[in-house]
């Protein structure tokens, strides 16, 4: 049975509709990410769950209870904000204790719970510090502890890592995921960073123009996007034209290479031109072991990205990116060289119209 249920959720600001008929069910203990570009409505949905925005239509249920018309302070939902939002007049201890004090818990219980939370985020030694005496990463960990202290039903994270530098962002997102697993708390995480969403989520909701375009596991979202928007938004995508040789067997001809796709192609007829998409890692430089080349083009640039080298190729006007592992023995293509690429069949996707 689902724990958090959003049914036909809608939100308009004046005449502008920012969330259209949003439906979703989230299991207890699941980590869900809302991913999408700015203005797609992901934060608005989160704020409706928190109670900061009143839905224009639809319902929000947590554990079978309707929350739609409850005030934010009646919902028992923890929230972490992008701007940390620690209370500047309170020490770390008092910040974490705030929710428990508001709930009227006894002092002994508050002390024990705050210590437990500070231990969880490894900041027991900073309990007397004030927010201005801490780094951004430390402040955000305190904000997380503060949100978790009153044992909320659901934890909402509104781009909590956006204000942090790259290294802290990676370590903190791993810490958030580990704490979430440890406590088994149902979590909704809003981000526009696809790497963040792909790395820590059980499921991802890719949002576009106020709608959920696709809901799926990170693998499904990345490898089997169901819409052109999701395919384009998540990861880097190359799109080339191919001729459909046999729709029933999923055979297409891309350049000189005849490739069999993992599944048959429906809705198209043999001989028709179709759009094939693939990720940079699905292409390799053609050689004796890879068979005939699917794409031939001129190298525009090769960029060193650490573990991989990303090369851009101009193939008859189509700009195609492909990745090579960074190995000492690898020959990195130089600008102006002509290269031929071969494509892995299971990395190819047929795009709809």
């Amino acid at each position, binding site marked *: 049975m689902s724990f958090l249920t959003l049914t036909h959720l809608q939100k308009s600001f004046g005449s502008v509709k920012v969330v259209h008929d949003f439906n979703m069910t989230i299991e207890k203990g699941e980590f869900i990410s809302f991913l999408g570009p700015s203005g797609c409505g992901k934060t608005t949905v989160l704020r409706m769950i*928190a*109670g*900061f925005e009143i839905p224009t239509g639809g319902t929000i249920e947590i554990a079978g209870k309707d929350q739609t018309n409850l*005030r*934010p*302070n009646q*919902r*028992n*939902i*923890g*929230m972490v*904000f992008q*701007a940390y*939002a*620690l*209370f*500047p*007049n309170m020490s770390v201890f008092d910040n974490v204790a*705030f*929710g428990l004090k*508001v*709930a009227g818990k006894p002092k002994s219980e508050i002390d024990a719970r705050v210590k437990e939370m500070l231990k969880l985020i490894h900041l027991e030694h900073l309990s007397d510090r004030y927010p*201005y*005496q*801490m*780094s951004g990463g430390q402040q955000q960990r305190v*904000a997380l502890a*503060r*949100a978790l202290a*009153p044992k909320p039903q659901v934890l*909402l994270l509104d781009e909590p890592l956006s204000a942090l530098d790259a290294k802290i962002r990676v370590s903190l997102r791993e810490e958030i995921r580990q704490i979430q697993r440890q406590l088994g708390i149902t979590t909704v995480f809003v981000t526009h960073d696809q790497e963040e969403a792909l790395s820590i989520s059980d499921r991802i909701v890719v949002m576009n123009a106020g709608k959920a375009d696709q809901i799926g596991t990170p693998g499904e979202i990345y490898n089997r996007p169901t819409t052109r928007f999701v395919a384009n938004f998540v990861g880097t995508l190359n799109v080339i034209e191919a001729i459909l040789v046999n729709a029933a067997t999923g055979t297409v001809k891309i350049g000189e290479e005849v490739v069999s796709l993992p599944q048959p192609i429906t809705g198209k007829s043999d001989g028709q031109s179709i759009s094939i998409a693939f990720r940079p890692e699905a292409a390799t430089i053609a050689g004796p072991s890879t068979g005939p080349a699917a794409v031939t083009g001129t190298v525009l640039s090769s960029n060193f990205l650490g573990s991989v080298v990303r090369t851009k190729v101009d193939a008859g006007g189509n700009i195609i990116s492909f990745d090579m592992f960074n190995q000492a023995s690898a020959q990195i293509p130089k600008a102006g060289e002509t290269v031929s690429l071969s494509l892995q069949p299971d990395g190819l996707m047929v795009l709809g119209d």
Partner: protein
Amino acid sequence: MKRFWAWGALIIGLLYFILPLIGMTNFSLKMRRGVYSFDAYAKVLGDTRFQETFSYSVTLALLTILVGVFLVVPTAYWVRLKLPFLRPYIEFVTLLPLVIPAIVVVFGYIRLYNTSSWLPLTGTALGTDVLLVAGYTMLALPYMYRAVDTGLRTIDVTTLTEAAQSLGAGWFTIITRIILPNVLVAVLSGAFLTFAIVIGEFTMAALLNRPAFGPYMQVLGANRAYEPAALAVIAFAITWGCLGLIQLVSRFQKSAQRPV
């Protein structure tokens, strides 16, 4: 050459302000013929009417500060949080006391709340005191509102409110435990200005016939020679003390918000 003129202007300005003060202080110390003494100060401070009027005005100043805080903090907070489009109008309203003379306001009060009106506040001493506090609150509004509004500008009111709400806090808890402590220095600045205004205010207290410090200063000035000068120095010291306290608490706030 430019620097010479700048220093020249500064020195002339300082002399313009300081010389009368020196003259007045000098005069206040000359009550005893031929020698400097604090006789005038001792006489003023020993006068029971000084003690009565001063303590009356201090009491009313504290009440005015309380009413001002209760009125201004929630209003400025709510305007920032929910009604930002009303800010220019609220600012305009709070500026009105600077352009409407106190005498107009107090006549309005007398006309509205006299003994034959539906709410005869001027009929009793307590009622008149209530009117006087209301009038003082209005006079201090431009300073109190601006101080609090500036304080609110330094914190992220919306996010702090939402964070507190998500932790279960209601409006009263949010205002008293989150917003007010975070704008306390601004509130104190407004409070000291309010105190200085109330201590020296004459028009309202005189026309409402209340035993305040302002009318006492006026009566003393009309009937004595040295004591009014001593009283003026005392009043200056109180005002400057308030301004000094504003500086002190502002410095305290700056050091409290220093990043590591």
